[in-house]
């Protein structure tokens, strides 16, 4: 596999990726690309990034052996504890990297799109830390169902703009952020939240979150004494998954599994599984798998997990799927919620519902791998985020909220 050399200079992963954006943005993308390439070679930039990760974000995250969960699943399960990072998810790595890049480019303002609000909160955090103006676009549907995250962003000094176009969700927030950027590109960096969008974003975001896999690989060798049989991650846009996959791509013995949000089931049409339930097209600046109708109009996605509720996926995942290097499968809402509860009860860890898709996926592949290998398989699961933000959703799902609590405006419904 030659993944480390991809994408090519124009941002293509095979037939995927590239740049499908208005010409007005090309100069900014070229400048971003150049700034990123020079930052990558600059020891001072890298030192500053590593310092923030280590001393501010709490990285490297632990690789934790989940003994009781392992017993239940019949596999040796190791959790990459990204949920312990500052702001509670892997996303802090990306926003710190990009905010430093914005400073380096002399851009005083950053904009971001957000669905559930996690990337918005992370962006607002990095902007506060590095003294940048921050504007977050968020679908009106989402500002209503994620009122607490809206408040968090405002506390951190960001401006939250509810988007009332289209379906009023994440994809429309992304459209609006692109429209803002076309207008303000001289002073503004678009802090894109996942490893998708026009080149160089898929590559740049992958590299900023790529420490997850580099750390996990080294931790495996150190703590287990060998590489795992499989690595599992949830996939929406796919940044946490590409972050943990990338370092393992050359290790052919390590199976890579991406678990997409199957919603009510891919067969129902109500899902967010772009690879397993979509087809190839162009959306938000790159060619990739996406949910579209027969005319190429984007279809709205559905998932209990707001962070996976997106109709596209990063182009490198499309490429890993086509080449067969990674395997993508859907996990339904019900399967994810069962895994959510299982981790709570066996390990005392409340995972993000996003990450629960990866746990549910690990539970599915464990017996298969056991049979294939003839021994207990070792699986590293990227626990990409913590579940505090999902307590209301999960409480409502399991029917464990007291009457008074059910009227608290809170997380997604």
């Amino acid at each position, binding site marked *: 596999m030659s993944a480390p050399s991809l994408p090519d200079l*124009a941002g293509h992963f095979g037939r995927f990726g*590239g*740049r*499908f*954006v*208005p*010409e*007005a*943005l*090309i*100069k*900014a993308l070229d400048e971003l690309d150049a700034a990123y390439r020079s930052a990558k070679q600059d020891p001072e930039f890298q030192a500053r990034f590593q310092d923030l990760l280590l001393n501010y974000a709490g990285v490297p995250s632990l690789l934790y052996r989940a003994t009781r969960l392992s017993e239940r699943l019949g596999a040796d399960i190791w959790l990459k504890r990204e949920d312990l990072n500052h702001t509670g998810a892997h996303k802090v790595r990306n926003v710190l990297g990009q905010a430093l890049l914005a400073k380096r480019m002399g851009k005083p303002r950053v904009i971001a799109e957000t669905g559930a609000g996690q990337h918005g909160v992370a962006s607002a955090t990095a902007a506060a830390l590095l003294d940048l103006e921050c504007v977050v676009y968020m679908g009106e549907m989402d500002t209503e169902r994620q009122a607490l995250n809206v408040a968090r962003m405002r506390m951190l000094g960001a401006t939250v703009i509810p988007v009332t*176009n*289209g379906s009023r969700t994440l*994809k*429309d927030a992304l*459209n609006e952020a*692109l*429209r803002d950027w*076309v*207008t303000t*590109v*001289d002073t503004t960096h678009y802090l894109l939240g996942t490893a998708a969008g026009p080149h160089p974003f898929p590559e740049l975001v992958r590299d900023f979150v790529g420490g997850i896999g580099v750390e996990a690989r080294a931790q495996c060798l150190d703590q287990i004494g060998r590489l795992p049989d499989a690595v599992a991650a949830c996939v929406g846009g796919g940044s946490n998954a590409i972050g943990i996959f990338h370092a393992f791509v050359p290790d052919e013995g390590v199976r890579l599994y991406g678990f997409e949000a199957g919603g009510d089931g891919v067969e129902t049409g109500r899902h967010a599984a772009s690879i397993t339930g979509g087809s190839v*097209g*162009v*959306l*938000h*600046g790159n060619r990739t798998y996406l949910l*579209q109708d*027969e*005319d*190429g*109009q*984007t279809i709205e996605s559905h998932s209990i997990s707001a962070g996976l509720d997106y109709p596209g996926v990063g182009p490198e995942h499309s490429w890993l799927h086509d080449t067969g290097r990674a395997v993508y499968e859907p996990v339904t809402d019900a399967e994810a919620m069962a895994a959510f509860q299982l981790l709570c009860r066996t390990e005392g860890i409340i995972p993000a519902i996003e990450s629960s898709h990866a746990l549910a996926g690990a539970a599915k592949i464990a017996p298969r791998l056991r049979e294939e290998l003839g021994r207990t398989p070792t699986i590293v699961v990227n626990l990409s985020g913590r579940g505090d933000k999902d307590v209301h959703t999960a409480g409502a799902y399991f029917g464990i909220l007291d009457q008074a609590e059910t009227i608290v405006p809170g997380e997604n419904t």
Partner: protein
Amino acid sequence: MSIATTFAKAKAENRSVLVGCMPAGFPTVDHSIEQMIAMHEAGCDVIEVELPYSDPVMDGPVIQKASDIALANGVRTRDTLKIIDAVASAGATVVLMTYWNPIEKYGVDAFARDLAAAGATGLITPDLIPDEAAEWIAASDAHKIDRTFLVAPSSTDERIAMTLENCRGFVYATALMGVTGARKSVSSQAPDLVARIRAVDPAIPVGVGLGVGNGEQAAEVAAFADGVIVGSALIRCVLEAEDRATGLANLRSLSAELAGGVRTRR
């Protein structure tokens, strides 16, 4: 009439070409045909049909809203081709503007073939840059469809030259850094951009879009551009009218006002 002939004729008359934009199927298929024919009759030299798309990142709120209405009313890609056929049959010069994904989904070569058969002379691609357009360039050559790519004030001279090499018919100069929609005043960046285009290729007609909403602004742009592209202001005539008759009347009178503007050139 081909795009080249349309621009040549206007040049001979010492005026600019008026390009009027309307989303296909807004608010319905039949009404959009009626609106486009009204625009043609009232003085729009070229009808730019916009294929409604779920995620129009280059468009401001007016075109987005009109596109959403068209899609909600069930317009399909094949309806857009029917609309083009009807408007071209009425004698208008028709170009299509579309985001890339609907074409890719239709099949690039099949789309070029059917677009030509419907009577469109060209295609404007707001989110397809020549760098990614190899398949489109081959298909549009095979079916003799003109190609209009965009240039922007932020485009480098190298990119302007590369883009012009790949355009045929006319080039779309976005007058400002932003999305579609009428503005209070004409962008000061537009004349400079047109001059930079002319410095590279003095022959290719330049259409200027973004921000033009009335006759006076059309005259201002006509002073330095070969074509004046108007969308949102025309669409608003229909979007904001109390009833259909008023909408059509406003559309005709604005088209006529703009047609006067491109003949005034100040």
